[in-house]
């Protein structure tokens, strides 16, 4: 019975021109821009994007939420969905750029972290956030980690780390280049050398639910082709 119902539902969706997208919260700026561009050439369609954390998106798709496309901030969750046969093979659409930035301290390089003026260093949870993992790798590869471990304030997500630096509760911290305003002259930032951390790959995947949906396929391909927009927003190309 449920199968029959599901069959009718999916038939319905093939003709429908609305898709449901789940995307990582910190993609909101860049993805809204891409969506805008996409709708210029496809004005008849509707694209609903919900921004949540990648982990919650995974849980929703696993629980059969009617989602067509999942744009993750990492490769871990899309890969897991793929292994569980709930989604197509993940495709990399961008690479994240890890930065160290501050609102009141001039940053020369990573050694700036040793400055005695710095009491709190914001770092997203390395177990959860890809940028946190990359930051920890960079600190370990430069042997800085043991010297500054006592100053680290572990945030629960990249967005929280950003908020802490932005509100000056942390004098300095690790963040995604895509989240800061590089035109702002009052901030100081450096890109962490990419040799110090494994690439922060970001992947998207079509769910079993949206796999056959032409609009979902088209939008996914459009995202993969939006290289210039991603570069403008502080991402590296895969």
């Amino acid at each position, binding site marked *: 019975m449920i199968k029959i119902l599901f069959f009718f539902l999916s038939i319905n969706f093939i003709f429908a021109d609305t898709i449901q997208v789940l995307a990582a919260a910190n993609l909101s700026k860049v993805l809204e821009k891409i969506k805008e561009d996409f709708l210029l050439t496809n004005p008849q369609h509707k694209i609903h994007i919900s921004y949540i*954390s990648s982990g919650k998106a995974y849980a929703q798709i696993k629980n059969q939420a009617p989602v067509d496309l999942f744009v993750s901030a990492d490769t871990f969750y899309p890969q897991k969905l793929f292994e569980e046969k709930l989604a197509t093979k993940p495709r990399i659409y961008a690479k994240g750029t890890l930065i160290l930035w501050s609102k009141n301290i001039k940053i020369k390089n990573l050694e700036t972290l040793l400055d005695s003026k710095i*009491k*709190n260093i914001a770092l997203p949870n390395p177990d959860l956030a890809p940028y946190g993992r990359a930051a920890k790798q960079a600190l370990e590869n430069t042997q800085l980690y043991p010297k500054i471990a006592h100053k680290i*304030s*572990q*945030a*629960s997500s990249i967005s929280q780390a950003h908020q*802490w630096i932005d*509100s000056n*509760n942390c004098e300095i911290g690790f963040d995604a280049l895509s989240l800061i305003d590089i035109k702002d002259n009052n901030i100081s930032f450096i890109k962490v050398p990419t040799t110090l951390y494994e690439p922060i790959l970001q992947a998207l995947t079509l769910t079993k639910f949206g796999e056959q949906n032409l609009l979902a396929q088209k939008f996914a391909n459009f995202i993969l082709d939006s290289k210039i927009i991603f570069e403008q927003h502080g991402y590296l190309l895969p």
Partner: protein
Amino acid sequence: MIFDIDFLQTIFLSIKLATYTTLLLLPIGIALGYFLAYSKHKAKIIIETLIWMPLILPPTVLGFYLLICFSPNHFLGAFLQKHFQIKLAFSFWGIVLGSVIFSLPFMVNPIKNALSTLPENLKEASYTLGKNKTSTLFFVLLPNISPSILLAIITTFAHTIGEFGVVIMLGGDIPNVSRVASIAIYTQTEMLNYQIAHSYALILSITSFSLLFIVIYINHKIQKGIL
């Protein structure tokens, strides 16, 4: 069930946070409860509204404002850092302070209600016998409402154990500082470690049930006039 050292530390931190919060709130609750029960002050209604606020206000709002207050860009944060080298954001005492504000109504209201229902002549008799206000409060009034005080203590403790929003906004996710059990469930779920999340959830559920059971049991006894 998984009981490794991290797990036990996290549970212990939850208990530590709830204990300190309750201990700090007890004198505050008695003072404010006494004021609300007996004062004729014009500002009483405003103060009462403010005390009730944390019950309605999303905890994230409280956490958000406190984080702004503690920032060195603002008066309080700058003052504390300059004169006492204290930094409240991402510190254990920061989340204690947040919890104290958050659980305020749970401590104040039962004490205030119990004091208001005490017969007037209890106070009068005590004054007539030459006792002053302070000793009347501590030796006459409070002993008479001890079941309600116990009630306030347990509900405050239970409420703090279950707190999430204030802690995550103010403290983040730092082991031994701000990673209490409710935060750990969130983190472990995000990491897809459902087994560990289950263990935390089960312990918190059992704790909540037990504490609530005691509260409701005491309440029954009070209503029957046994306590």
